[in-house]
């Protein structure tokens, strides 16, 4: 039997992934004068939306789905950007000329057989939640939180939940834990590692969050060793009832939310023969190894964009800010301009009353300075590499965040000496780069 196939009209640029990065790429292209037809194709059945609120305001019913939508339909129509929802691309067929050369054009083939011919291709395919392998992982009530559908499912379950276990003490896990705790649930966080958010912040910040969250009544287990998810009995057969630890104790849970990081969606890139190494390998201009395809956002492994970073150091960033900035570079590449990353990477995470803002990248830091003002509830950690500030974690301290972000952006330094005193504004300590501190 032949499956009927639909062949779409050729598009100038096919963006796979209606993600933060994909949306920004389309918008930025129109801003840079790209006048060819653009198709923005997403796997989900929703109009392109913003993810950050899914673990916070959306979960807490403070905003609804409509608030998460990036742009009105009129915007897309007026800008000649065609949205395709619910289309999962399974493979890419690149066009090859008689002499063997490839110009970046080809056809994307969707799971339903629809063919999307393109002149240029952008991969903004993001990442997916890493799955936990453990006995009982398939039980009803074990959920993940990456997409709007995940969040809708989670919300629909909350009515029956009194006890929740969050697996993973990273940003998503802690944001969700705070949301659930704020809704009156008993929340236990199981973190495998020795500290919270170990991948993104230093030890001082981890400790600060640990104390704050324990202080509000969230049970946090570090070095947690889970042996299985326990199934309920009777009416609750097939549904999760608890989490068993190595010592045999069981923590009750009618809901287990797993937030143990993401896996970049590199399958299409691999199938295309692009270089892949913890993401799709791209150059400073967001161009993949075939020289024509661009890859942006969470899925891209790029040169460390921080000014002064060692040559050859690479990084894959999972953040809104990176999705936006990286997409802008790709937009330039697609219009024949060679631009490099502008601005300083930054990140945020809101956890109950704690507003964390991170400026810069801690990669390669060798020392830290803690600024703490408990009376005002402000806490910052500055990270240094060879005496140069490279990043800061700032909790409820936007002035510190702004000072570090601006200094990094201008290639300046905030010498470590006086930075620990919270009474001294960081802004007043800024000096030009490579000015050495003079010890008294």
């Amino acid at each position, binding site marked *: 039997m032949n499956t009927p196939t639909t062949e779409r009209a050729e598009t100038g640029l096919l963006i796979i992934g209606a993600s933060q990065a994909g949306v920004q790429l389309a*918008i930025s292209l129109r801003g840079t004068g790209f006048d060819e037809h653009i198709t923005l194709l997403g796997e989900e059945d929703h109009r392109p939306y*913003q993810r*950050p*609120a899914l673990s*916070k*305001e959306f979960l807490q019913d403070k905003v609804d789905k409509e*608030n*998460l*939508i*990036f*742009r*009105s339909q*009129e*915007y897309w129509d*007026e*800008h000649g950007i065609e949205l395709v929802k619910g289309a999962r691309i399974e493979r890419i067929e690149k066009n090859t000329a008689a002499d063997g050369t490839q110009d970046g054009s080809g056809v994307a083939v969707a799971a339903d057989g629809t063919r999307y011919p393109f002149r240029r291709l952008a991969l903004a395919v993001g990442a997916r939640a890493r799955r936990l392998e453990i006995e009982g992982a398939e039980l009803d009530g074990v959920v993940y939180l990456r997409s709007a559908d995940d969040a809708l499912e989670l919300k629909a379950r909350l009515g029956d939940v009194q006890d929740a276990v969050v697996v993973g003490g990273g940003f998503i896990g802690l944001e969700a834990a705070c949301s659930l705790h704020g809704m009156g649930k008993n929340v236990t966080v199981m973190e495998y590692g020795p500290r919270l958010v170990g991948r993104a912040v230093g030890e001082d910040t981890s400790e600060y969050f640990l104390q704050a969250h324990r202080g509000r009544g969230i049970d946090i287990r570090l070095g947690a060793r889970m042996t299985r998810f326990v199934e309920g009995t009777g009416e609750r057969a097939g549904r999760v009832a608890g989490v068993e630890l190595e010592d045999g104790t069981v923590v009750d849970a009618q809901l287990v939310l797993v937030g143990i990081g993401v896996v970049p969606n590199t399958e299409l890139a691999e199938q295309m023969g692009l270089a892949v190494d913890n993401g799709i390998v791209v150059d400073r201009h967001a161009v993949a190894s075939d020289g024509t395809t661009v890859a942006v956002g969470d899925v891209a492994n790029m040169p460390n964009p921080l000014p002064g970073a060692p040559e050859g150091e690479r990084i894959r960033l999972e953040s*809104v*800010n990176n999705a*936006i900035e990286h997409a802008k570079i790709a937009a330039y590449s697609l219009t024949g301009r060679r631009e490099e990353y*502008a*601005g300083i990477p*930054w990140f*945020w995470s*809101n956890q109950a009353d704690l*507003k964390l*803002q991170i400026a810069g990248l801690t990669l390669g830091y060798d020392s830290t300075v803690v600024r703490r003002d408990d009376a005002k509830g402000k806490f910052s950690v500055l990270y240094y590499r060879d005496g140069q500030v490279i990043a800061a974690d700032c909790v*409820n301290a*936007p*002035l510190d*965040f*702004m*000072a570090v*972000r*601006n200094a990094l952006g201008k290639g300046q330094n905030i010498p470590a000496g006086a930075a620990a005193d919270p009474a001294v504004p960081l802004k007043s300590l800024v000096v030009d780069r490579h000015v050495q501190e003079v010890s008294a």
Partner: protein
Amino acid sequence: MPTIHYTDAAGSTIDINANVGDSVMETAVRNGVPGIVAECGGSLSCATCHVFVREDELEQLPGMSEMEDEMLYGTTEDRRDNSRLSCQIKVTEGMDLHVTTPETQV
């Protein structure tokens, strides 16, 4: 319907009919008003939705939180007396607000 008038640094104005309850930032972004970036989606983390509110309309607006006040010290274009973060201004019934966007947000 409430109306927000967005004027860019060059002086051209876009008028948008807004929904009560949305923020001035959301109204701008959803309709593609240039000049408002709003990287953080309205969670008061990025200071890229900075606007200047028409002086005589400033008093109609609820005051700003300490966090907004501090964030405004980090905007790319320096704050003025009529600076606000547009994510913190909710559209209300009958609102007719004039804001100017700065030359650059990032």
